[in-house]
């Protein structure tokens, strides 16, 4: 089982996002003002486009596209030392937000991950801690 570091609390901005992860929901915010860029992510108390604090939480369908990625071959941080090569990626979710995550479920991350690949979220249980971590798995195309 994975041993990723857990989010730490109290941290008021991200609390609702991580409560969502516990319920299998990938949550993001939208600004209710009619501003130019209403999708807000990472979680905040204001809209970085217009400054409004009138935000609502929404649940993403969890599907998106790999914008870019790297495969980390060396990380001295506990929890990653024994993992072998693993991916780090930016995923563009279909609702319009970009999040850092990892693409999992491939035999060889150095050859089986591509920019533009379609991926779907899953919530990876961790060996320790209460928060499953949202990661992404390639969508099997028909």
């Amino acid at each position, binding site marked *: 089982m994975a041993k*990723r*570091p*857990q*989010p*730490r*609390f109290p*941290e008021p*901005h*991200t609390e609702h*996002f*991580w409560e969502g992860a516990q319920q299998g929901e990938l949550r993001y915010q939208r600004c209710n003002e009619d501003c130019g*860029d209403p*999708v807000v*992510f*990472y*979680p*905040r108390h204001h809209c970085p486009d217009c400054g409004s604090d009138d935000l609502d939480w929404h649940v993403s369908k969890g599907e998106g596209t790999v*914008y*870019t*990625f*790297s*495969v*980390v*071959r*060396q*990380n*001295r*941080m*506990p*929890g*990653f030392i024994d*993992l072998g090569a*693993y991916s*780090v*990626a*930016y995923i*563009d979710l279909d609702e*319009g*937000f*970009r*999040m*850092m*995550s*990892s693409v999992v479920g491939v035999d060889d991350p*150095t050859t089986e991950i591509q*920019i*533009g690949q379609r991926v779907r979220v899953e919530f990876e249980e961790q060996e320790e801690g209460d928060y499953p*971590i949202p990661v992404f798995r390639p969508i099997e195309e028909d």
Partner: protein
Amino acid sequence: MAQERQAAIVGIHEYPLRVAPGVSAMNVKVDSIRAALDDAGLKWSDIDAIYDAQDGEAGGGLQLAAYLGLRPTVLDTTQVGGSSYEFQAAHAMRDIAAGKCNVAVLSYGSTSASNRVAIGTGGRGGPATWATNMETPYGATLIANYAMVKQRHMFEYGTTDEQFAGISVATRHHAMRNPEAVKAMTDLQFVGVNEITPQDVLDSRIVADPLHLLECCMISDGGGAVIIASAEVARNCKKPPVWLIGAGEATKYRENGGDITTSAGAQSGPIAFGEAGVSPDEIDIAMIYDSFTITVAVCLEDLGFCPKGEIGAYVEGGRLAFDSGEGPALNTDGGGLSSNHPGMRGIFLLLEGARQLRGESTSQVPDAKLAVAHGNGGLLGGTHTGGTVILAKD
């Protein structure tokens, strides 16, 4: 040129060692300040402005003034990672032009190598924040952040590993002519202290795809100091002044739908070149923060040396070497890749830029007149800063 010439670099010193066990970062700072003052022909009590990136054991400008025993009229503690010194040089320019001070000191000291700090491959510590809580679970090392930019650049523009490797080849070419860089690579136990080929870079192991080991900077001890003075003071210094004629500052960060291959330099560069009244094609010396090859590639594009996405073709053929006859010459001291990177390299960009415009470089470009120093702080691809300073020969 109609630009203002109100502030100049008048004294410089680069701490000679990259492995200095038993020496404190504060020792490195103070030794460098003393040597830079001597280089300028100024004395300790002439300093009336301190710019400090909150490095060293003392922890900040407040403590540094006490440690040095000075009562500056300007105390600036700008800390924006590796670009801190370009930001500070910009602020010193402004403060001197405004009459707030006459002799400004910038200093840096670090013992990253002796303390075995895993800058690129260690964990990212610190308190939980709105941003760290969203990223820490994924194990994105510092290098991975830069690697993701290279990956996207290769995808979007077709830039090749061989083209990126040309940046490492050029800086190593310069490093082999710089005795301090050769000693650095020797002391840090580089495998092969010699000129390298693009194939050597491609054959080195991958640290985080698609970045190879020889595309990554070293982790060293070291530091230095820069003295910036008013025109009036500069005229009476020992060495010819190196004028600060333009500066720009910017920050950039992860945004929904944003372009990761464009850095803060796209904002800071035009401001600096505009203020200086010069264009990139006039620049002889490009001192660009080479934490990794991708950093140089993106920053050269963003500063306007070539259009976005065309860096591959631009660097092919070895134009970045000091003796290519084409220019600009890149990081003629050997850069962070092959000479000196204790964590915040920005000060070395100013130091080597000044050496070139004085005619003191070990890879001297004949009659170099203009240099750009561009620092990149933080994480390219994530939250980062860009500080651009244009330097001119007297």
